[in-house]
């Protein structure tokens, strides 16, 4: 029994039943498949993180963002600047208690280098209803190249707990044709 020592002194040489052996081989090959699937997707898939990131002081990141806002602001909504940066450019999104700043307006099927960083605690960038989720740290500038392929209005929810106002932290991204 499993609660008593093995009955054979040398149990290592006991043969393994065929059915067990088959399952071990199947499970091992399935593991390899899943492992190489991740590598394969880096080559063939379109949804990968580049892992490009920089250490940055929060004030410095805020300066970059402010420069973008000053240059490309096209409107205002509920106190948030709406910014329409040129396709292909570096776009900055500030996470802070409890805002995603500013509102971005992107063009469909164009690429942007989206920078995200926090001014204070950790936040979670959660783009809805598409459901893209990445972690946003203070002191780190994470760069993700995004290519919106659907036009519309998208919510940015914070999904990392960031204090008592966490549930009010909602931002917006517009994708226009």
């Amino acid at each position: 029994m499993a609660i008593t020592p093995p009955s054979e002194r040398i149990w290592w040489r006991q043969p393994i039943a065929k059915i067990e052996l088959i399952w071990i081989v199947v499970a091992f090959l399935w593991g390899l498949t899943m492992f190489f699937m991740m590598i394969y997707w880096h080559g063939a898939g379109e949804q990968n993180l580049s892992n490009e990131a920089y250490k940055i002081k929060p004030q410095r990141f805020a300066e970059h963002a402010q420069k973008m806002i000053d240059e490309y602001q096209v409107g205002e909504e509920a106190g948030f600047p709406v910014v329409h940066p040129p396709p292909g450019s570096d776009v900055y999104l500030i996470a802070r208690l409890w805002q995603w700043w500013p509102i971005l307006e992107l063009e469909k099927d164009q690429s942007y280098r989206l920078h995200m960083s926090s001014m204070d605690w950790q936040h979670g960038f959660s783009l809805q209803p598409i459901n893209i989720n990445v972690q946003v740290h203070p002191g780190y500038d994470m760069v993700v190249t995004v290519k919106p392929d659907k036009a519309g209005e998208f919510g940015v929810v914070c999904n990392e707990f960031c204090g008592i106002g966490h549930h009010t932290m909602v931002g917006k991204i517009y994708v226009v044709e």
Partner: protein
Amino acid sequence: MPDNNNTGEEQSPDPDREQIPLMQRVLDNPFLLLVLGIAMPTVLYIIWGIIEITQIPIAD
């Protein structure tokens, strides 16, 4: 590691009895397993991970 030399005394006095296979002796050695079980994640997860983080470049 007090346990490594215990394998000697495990050999039965009866000379006909087979020696215990190496892999069984490894699995019977809790302290060897403890060392392996700590070393693997410490090196592969923690140390490698911290090296990755320290290599993140500083923005201008």
